[in-house]
C-alpha cells in the first residue's frame, strides 16, 4: 500500500485534515486516523498496523480491530488517498444533484477515462450523476455503476435492455455487451451531464434519444472497423510515416506532438490518433 503523495496532511487538534488538491476534497480524521496515516506513511502494511494497534491498546482493543482498520483503509482508498489497497473501497466519489446530505468529500466528481464511450465523452470529462429508482432506468440511459470488487473505479455504459438478472449494458465502442448485469447492489446512477475540462456543462442524451445516438455510434464504429481492416495491413508499406517530434507523459498516458499539434494519445487502452488519418502520416513505436 502506498499513500497518495499529493495529499496534504495538516494537524487539526487531536485529528488532522487531509486535503486532496486534485479534486478539492477535504476530510477530517480523528486521532486513530492520524495514527493509521502515520503508520502508512512509515510504509507499514495492514497486518503491521493491526499488530501495532493491538500492542498500543492492549485489552482495550475492539474485538473486530482488523475490520475497523480495513474499513478505514477502504475509506482512504475510496477517496483516492491510498493506492494498492486490496480490500473493498468505500464511499464512492460522486455528485448527486438531488442529494441533500452534506457528507464531506461527496462533492468530487467521477471522471471519464479510457475509450468505451468515445465520441460521447472525452477522457477527462467530469460526469454529473443523478440518483434514480432502479425501475425507472430505460434503454438508452447512460448508467454509472460500481460493481463489487472494482474499488472506486466505476463503469459508465449505456443501458440497452433489461432482463430478469438486471440491466443489460454496453459501451458504445466495445465489441460486445457486458456479461455483468447491473443490479441495485451496483448502485446505478444516471449520467445526466458531462462537464468539459474547461468547465462547460453539456447534457447527455438518455432514453429514446440516447438509443438513437447509440445506434448511430455503432454504425460509425462498424464503418471504422471495416476501414481499419482494409488499411491496417498496408500500414507497414507506408514508408513516409515518421515518429512525432515530442511526447508528454500525463498520468498513465502519453501525448505525442508534431509541429506543436497533438497527433496521438497513448492510454492503457492503446494508441489513438487524433484525427484518425494521422495514422497515415505518423507511427508510434511500442
Amino acid at each position, binding site marked *: 500500500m502506498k499513500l497518495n503523495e499529493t495529499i496534504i496532511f495538516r494537524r487539526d487538534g487531536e485529528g488532522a485534515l487531509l*486535503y486532496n488538491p486534485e479534486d478539492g476534497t477535504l476530510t477530517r480524521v480523528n486521532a486513530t486516523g492520524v495514527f493509521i496515516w502515520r503508520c502508512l506513511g512509515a510504509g507499514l502494511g495492514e497486518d503491521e498496523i493491526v499488530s501495532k494497534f493491538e500492542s498500543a491498546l492492549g485489552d482495550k482493543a475492539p474485538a473486530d480491530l482488523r475490520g475497523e482498520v480495513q474499513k478505514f483503509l477502504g475509506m482512504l482508498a475510496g477517496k483516492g488517498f491510498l493506492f494498492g489497497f486490496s480490500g473493498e473501497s468505500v464511499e464512492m466519489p460522486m455528485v448527486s444533484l438531488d442529494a441533500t446530505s452534506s457528507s464531506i468529500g461527496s462533492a468530487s466528481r467521477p471522471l471519464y477515462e479510457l475509450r468505451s464511450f468515445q465520441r460521447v465523452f472525452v477522457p477527462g470529462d467530469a460526469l454529473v450523476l443523478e440518483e434514480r429508482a432502479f425501475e425507472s432506468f430505460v434503454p438508452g440511459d447512460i448508467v454509472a455503476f460500481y460493481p463489487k470488487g472494482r474499488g472506486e473505479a466505476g463503469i459508465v455504459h449505456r443501458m440497452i435492455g433489461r432482463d430478469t438478472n438486471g440491466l443489460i449494458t454496453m459501451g458504445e465502442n466495445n465489441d460486445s455487451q457486458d456479461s455483468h448485469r447491473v443490479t441495485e447492489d451496483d448502485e446505478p446512477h444516471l449520467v445526466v451531464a458531462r462537464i468539459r475540462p474547461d468547465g*462547460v*456543462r453539456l447534457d447527455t442524451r438518455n432514453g429514446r434519444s440516447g438509443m438513437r445516438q447509440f445506434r448511430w455510434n455503432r454504425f460509425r464504429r462498424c464503418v471504422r472497423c471495416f476501414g481499419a481492416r482494409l488499411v491496417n495491413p498496408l500500414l507497414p508499406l507506408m514508408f513516409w510515416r515518421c515518429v512525432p517530434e515530442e511526447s508528454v507523459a500525463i498520468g498513465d498516458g502519453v501525448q505525442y506532438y508534431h509541429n506543436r499539434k497533438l497527433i496521438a494519445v497513448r492510454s492503457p487502452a492503446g494508441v489513438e490518433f487524433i484525427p484518425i488519418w494521422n495514422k497515415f502520416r505518423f507511427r508510434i513505436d511500442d
Partner: protein
Amino acid sequence: MARELVIRLELSGGESLHLGARGRRACRSLHDLSVMIDSRCVSAPLDSCGSILFDGELRSEYTGLPRRGGVARTGMSSDGRFAVLTNGSYLPYQSGEWPMMLRLVMLSGLSRGQSIFPVHGALLETGGGHGVLLFGRSGIGKTTTVSRYRAAGGVCRSDDFNLCQWDGRNLIVYPMPTCSYYCVNWTPQLRYSYSPGVVIDGLWWLQRGDRESVVRAPEHEWLAALAHAISFHWIWVFRSLPAKPKREFGERVLDLALTLKAAFAPESLLASLDGDIMDVFRR
C-alpha cells in the same frame, strides 16, 4: 487589433494582476474579457504578466491541459509564471481561454505570496459595498438562489467565478464572468462590472432547507465546502501539474481556507423555494 495585449486588473491596496496575450486569436480572447469586465488595456511589456496566453511557441513547456479538440499546453518559468499555448484548431468562443489564464495568473500570484484566489460561488450584494459570498457544490441551487435574489430586487454581479483578495483584515471580492455562459452563449453585449470590489460580511454555505434561514454550520463540513469552492476553478490545473508544485499549491489553498475559517463564522444559508430570500437579510 494589436498582436500583443496586456490588461491590468486593479485590486485594493495597490495590488494588481496583469494578463497578457500574444497573437491575434489570444489577443481577441483577452480583449473579450477586458470588454466584458470593462477593464483597461495597458501598455506594459508581456514580461510583467503573471500569465501569458500564446498562439505561438512556448519555451518551458512541461504539461498539457486536456481541452475539446486538443490540448492547451502550459509551461512555468523559474519565477513561477505560467504561460498557455493554445491549440491552433480551437474555436475562440468555445475555448474558455481567458478563464484558464485568470486561473493561472492567480496561481502564479499565489506562488509569490499573493492572497488572490478564485472562489466558485455567487456574490450577493447587500449595499454600501458589502455583500455575502454563497458557495456550495454544483447543482445545489446557487443559480436558482441568485435568480430569486435578483427577482426580489437584490444585486448579484457574479454567480460562478469570483476573484477574491484577502488583505489580512477583509475579504474583497471582484465579480468575474460566468465561464460556462461565456463559452456557450457569448454575445458582445455580455457585461460584468468588475469594479468596485465588494467587502464580504459572510461566507454562506448553501444548503437546502424547509425554511429560509441562516444557521450555524458544522465547522468541518463548512470548511470542506469552502476548500472545495476555492479549489473548484483550479482543479483542472492542479491535475496537470507535477507532484511537487501540486503539493505546494495545495498547501497554499488549505492555508487560505483555514485563514478564512479563522476570520468568518461558519454559516449556512438554508434555501427554500417557498421562502422569501430577502427575509434573511432583513433579520
